[in-house]
């Protein structure tokens, strides 16, 4: 019987914990990002170099998008939204490396991302509106909507998981099938297309995370904040 390509095969075990390839790839991405951050941010200057200017451009773009969607000072949300965007982007692009399967092509990674978005929306909702205010948002517009709002929280989390998983996994499968049928260099256009698709998916996931957070923190009982771009640390 042929094994399902969606099944994960543990590479090794650490005690009872099975270590799979998405975890290993994620560790690699994390190590690369940590090394890059340490190298590039250890000597920041008021007059930025090219790399610093690029980093500031990326961070500024993330702040701008988060502020546009959430309509608040983006500093508190920068870490979550930025990390989600950068991780998904690099994870999707990791497919370019030979023998590497992007972690986002696995359901567990996407589910972990969606869980973090769900937890972040709850965290920021409670932090900015208070527990009572956040829970009251489930009773909008009427108490009868409480079950539906709870279901909405679950379904939209699932939609995040399924959207990212379906897009990335399908791309990996298509490239794998074409590679097995046509030859070594034929899938290159598809891989380029997958780069674009990975970028778009990272952007969509991050924007949807902002939308969910904005839904959680918006309301009459939420304290107004003055927007101050790049003005405070996360």
């Amino acid at each position, binding site marked *: 019987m042929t094994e*399902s390509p*969606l*099944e*994960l095969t543990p590479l090794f075990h650490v005690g*009872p*914990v*099975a*270590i*799979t390839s*998405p*975890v290993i790839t*994620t*560790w690699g991405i*994390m190590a690369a*990002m*940590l090394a890059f*951050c*340490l190298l590039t*941010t250890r000597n*920041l*200057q*008021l007059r*930025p170099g090219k790399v*610093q200017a690029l*980093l*500031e451009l990326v*961070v*500024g773009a993330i702040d701008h998008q988060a502020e546009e969607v959430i309509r608040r000072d983006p*500093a508190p949300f*920068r*870490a*979550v939204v*930025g*990390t*989600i965007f*950068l*991780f998904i982007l690099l994870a999707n692009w990791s497919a370019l490396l030979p023998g590497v399967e992007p*972690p986002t092509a*696995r*359901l*567990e*990674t996407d*589910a*972990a*991302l969606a*869980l*973090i978005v769900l937890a972040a929306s709850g965290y920021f909702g409670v932090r900015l509106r208070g527990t009572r205010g956040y829970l009251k948002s489930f009773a909008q517009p009427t108490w009868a909507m409480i079950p539906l709002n709870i279901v909405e929280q679950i379904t939209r989390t699932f939609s995040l998981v399924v959207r990212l998983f379906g897009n990335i996994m399908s791309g990996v499968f298509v490239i794998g099938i074409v590679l097995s049928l046509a030859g070594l260099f034929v899938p290159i256009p598809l891989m380029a297309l997958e780069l674009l698709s990975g970028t778009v998916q990272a952007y969509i996931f991050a924007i949807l995370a902002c939308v969910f957070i904005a839904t959680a923190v918006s309301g009459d009982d939420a304290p107004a904040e003055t927007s101050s771009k*790049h*003005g*405070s*640390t*996360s």
Partner: protein
Amino acid sequence: MHIDWWTLALQTINLLVLVWILSRFLFRPIADIVRQRQAAADELLEKAEAQRQQAEEEEKQAEAAQKAAEKARGNVLQDAGREAESEKAQILADARKQADDLRAAVEAEIERRRKAEQAKIGEQAGALAVEIATKLFTRLPDSAKIDGFVQGLAEAVAKLPGQARDEIGADGAAVTVLAARKMSDAEVASCRDALSGALGREVSVSVKVDPALIAGLEIELPHAAVRNSFHADLDRIATELAGHAEA
């Protein structure tokens, strides 16, 4: 479809760790440096604004100082103008006064010289008149130099105040009569009779000759004199001429 829960848990932990890593080593340093740059830019802008305001303030002060200097200059010029005008008026007044004084002095000097000249001319005219009269009277006969004056002398004596008349021939002393020439006995007697008649008492007469009288008789008293001679008349004429000349 199977979900590996260990992988899900590990990926969740991995992502949370990644959130911390990026927050600590990427987003926070970048945000810090951007904030520092913004603060530096704000500081520069504030300094520039402060310098601009200071420059404007200094410009205003300079303008005020310039206006004050112009005003002071105007005041100084105005004061100097007034002072010069006053000094000019003073100088003109002094000059005018000096000119007036000088003119008055000159006019006074001219007047004085004119009067002196007139007096001199008067004196010369008087002297000339006296000289002419003297020459004319020398041609008169000797009898005319005495006879015509006896009666006049007696009338003059009669007009004297009482005390002056009492002094004439008092205590029996002879009355000294000055004559232009030596008088004859008849003339002396005539003179004595005339004087006795004028005084109302008998007096004696002694005669002293004084040719300077030209013609006529005179009596010298201790406190008065009775003159009835050409010499006295010419003196009065010369005095009158001199007085007219001075006037």
